[in-house]
């Protein structure tokens, strides 16, 4: 990992828990950028799988799909979204049918869509920051 000295000069979006991110990656912003890039690379397929599982009406698959995308938000420091995924996963375990979850699913879907935009924006900021720091 590369150690960058200008720790406090990078300002993350408020959605990102900086302390948590630092507990994972320390001050290595190059590696943080790599993690964000990896997340964005597989984000589409994970989100599509979630949507498909909901559309197919399969609660078990839906629970598995949200379980699978959940840690992604931990890796990028979006701990609130991570918790929301956990709550939805718990709901899947108690619901009788996907229809009951419609409102919660739509809310989570929007949250996941917006989160992607946040990650993309942070990614761009990180690219600039790291190119200037190297």
């Amino acid at each position, binding site marked *: *990992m590369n150690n960058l000295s200008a720790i406090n000069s990078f300002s993350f979006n408020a959605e990102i828990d900086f302390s948590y991110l630092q*507990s*994972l990656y*320390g001050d290595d912003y190059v*590696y943080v950028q*790599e*993690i964000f890039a*990896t*997340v964005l*690379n*597989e984000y589409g397929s994970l989100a599509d799988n979630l949507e498909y599982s909901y559309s197919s009406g399969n609660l078990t698959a839906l629970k*598995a799909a949200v*379980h*699978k995308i*959940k*840690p*992604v938000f*931990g*890796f990028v420091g979006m701990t609130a979204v991570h918790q929301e995924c956990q709550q939805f996963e718990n709901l899947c375990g108690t619901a009788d049918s996907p229809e009951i979850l419609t409102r919660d699913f739509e809310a989570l879907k929007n949250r996941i869509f917006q989160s992607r935009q946040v990650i993309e924006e942070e990614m761009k900021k990180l690219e600039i920051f790291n190119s200037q720091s190297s």
Partner: protein
Amino acid sequence: MILSCILVEDLQVAANYPTNCCEKSGLVEVKGHFSNVPDALSFLNSNTVDLIFLDVEMPGANGFELLDQIAFSPKVILTTSKTEYAYNAFQYNVSDYLMKPFTYQRFLEALQKIQPSKETISTNSASDHIYIKTDGKLIRLNNESILFIESMGDYVKFVTVDNKKYITHNTIKNLEEKVSKQHFLKVHRSYIVNLHKIDDMRENLLFIKGNEIPVSKANKADVFKRLNIV
């Protein structure tokens, strides 16, 4: 001592991170990353590792099914985001349970839990080959090429997959201490077998490529344990 490991994880970012932790620690060498159980199993059928970082929920077979099918007993650290696998983890003698994502400090703590078994790991991570002295020269035999070793009094006979036989001055008792514990197990006072080569077992007999190997009562429990019989 550097441990060898593989990661079995279908989420790319969740494989990337522990890989980085391993490199950073300098304590663990990553031999491979597999995103599903069949690929990991294929690797482990011809390679051994000290440690597996194992996700549980993956497309197709789950992580525990991998542990059911491998012929040796590496240390296992579960990497999951569920707490529901505690009972299974206990059953499979899992060393630790890391909730994704985990901090680097937590990763190091998990590795420390493996340290008390250092002696075992050292034995398990023995070389992938041995040299034997026969006909006045040293011959290298890869672990995977050996079917079994048979006692012949003060000599032993190594039988290999290409049906060659090498006789050397040694004893089963001495070899038991020297061969890789991941590959080999003493099943009888006169036999050490390669666990990866066993075709089947009936009563007190093992069958390896048409060879009938007796299993003593004293060693039978160990054999069952190592074969991961379910």
